[in-house]
């Protein structure tokens, strides 16, 4: 029973990711991306990446709390989709927004702390995505767990990246920050038992 549930969960994640990616294109073609489409694409891809990041972090607590060990099978998939949307987000910024104008980016954007935060989080995500496969996992042995614990700092940096961008009212980033802290505390306390 439970093994078929995980199959459904994985299928659902594929469909959801495909749907939300497709929706961006659909809305673009139908002029539904607000008056400021680049900003809207940036916001959406960023938000999807962050939500999936939080879901990745919730796998271990779900496994322990509900005894649903199979969920770990979906963790890599969720994590890779988070990386997928982070990649769309990154190239929206670089290509759509700044037209790969590296002069402009290097001159006055790169020094902004929200850019530094977002970019460092993305670099770490590349490393984690690249070592998420079984081969790498086997080769790294116990080191793999230490390396992939970096997902917690990544999540915190991403929340800062978000908070530094809003004009005022950090309510939404704060919500994600709280959720991530709770998940970390939950995981640590569950592992101790």
């Amino acid at each position: 029973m439970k093994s078929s549930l995980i199959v459904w969960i994985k299928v659902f994640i594929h469909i959801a990711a495909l749907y939300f990616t497709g929706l961006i294109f659909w809305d673009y073609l139908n002029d539904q991306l607000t008056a400021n489409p680049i900003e809207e694409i940036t916001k959406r891809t960023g938000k999807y990446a962050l939500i999936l990041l939080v879901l990745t972090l919730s796998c271990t607590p779900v496994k322990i709390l509900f005894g649903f060990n199979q969920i770990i099978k979906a963790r890599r998939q969720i994590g890779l989709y988070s990386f997928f949307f982070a990649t769309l987000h990154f190239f929206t910024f670089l290509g759509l927004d700044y037209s790969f104008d590296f002069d402009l980016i290097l001159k006055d954007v790169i020094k902004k702390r929200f850019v530094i935060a977002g970019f460092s989080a993305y670099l770490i995500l590349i490393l984690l995505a690249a070592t998420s496969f079984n081969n790498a996992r086997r080769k790294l042995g116990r080191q793999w767990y230490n390396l992939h614990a970096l997902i917690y700092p990544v999540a915190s940096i991403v929340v800062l990246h978000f908070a530094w961008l809003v004009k005022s009212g950090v309510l939404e980033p704060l919500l994600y920050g709280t959720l991530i802290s709770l998940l970390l505390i939950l995981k640590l306390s569950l592992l101790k038992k």
Partner: protein
Amino acid sequence: MTKVKSSEITPESLYLNRRKFMVGVGGIILSTAGFPGCDNYKTTYEPSKGGVLPDDKLTSYKDITTYNNFYEFSLDKEDVIFAAKDFKTSPWKLEIGGLTEKSLSIDVDDLTKIYDQEERIYRFRCVEGWSMVIPWLGLPLARLLKEVEPLPEAKYVQFMTLHSPSRMPNQKSRSFPWPYIEGLRIDEAMHDLTFLSTGLYGKKLMPQNGAPIRLVVPWKYGFKSIKSIVRILLVEHMPSSLWMKVNPREYGFYSNVNPTVDHPRWSQASERRIGEFGRRETLPFNGYEEDVADLYKGMDLKKYF
């Protein structure tokens, strides 16, 4: 910097009638008295007064009326139009007073009848990094200020938005020190570019755009252009604006558009023009440098941001 006449900008389709008319006039000072449906509609726009640059195109009416920052209604720019749709803007009393010889209390509907409305096409640059080109309708603020005769002690002008949490739902939120207050130095307020708008695209303002009357200061970031004004006071000391109270480190009194003075957290060197893909360079004083730079002679604009 070459500036073009308002008649040379590609207008929206609903503007076509007017355009035909203007092309016929051929360029000098345009008067559209007798234009169907707009009895007191008159354009005395002179190209030298700010205006637009050769590659500026009017932002669509749809974009101007669906993408709005108006925190009294919603923090979500796409939601403001819905949150403000039942906002009643007539009758509406505007009061002007403070350090003045006379004071003025006038209904905005009467104001638009008594004072000739003129059109000004201005670039509008938001502090968030996007911009529009908007054909405003209204009158220079100086015309009303001269009417009330400011006293010599009046050094600043303070503007206040309606404060009514029952009508402006987000004023119930305690995240902001309502009401919205803005201010200008008196010479900025008297400058001919400084405009009180009651309409755009030849129509009355919509609630989401600050109906029935709002300020437009085209060389400053958009948040200085306070909406739905109920009171204008001439005062002696520099008023503290809502944004200065919220975050004095990030938002200063002057808030002139300046590509060389970044927002502490993001760059102001470039902007996204609504309706275009990609970025444009942001211009000093939003392109109105020739007209307004003199107001700030000798001032350190990094310090007085």
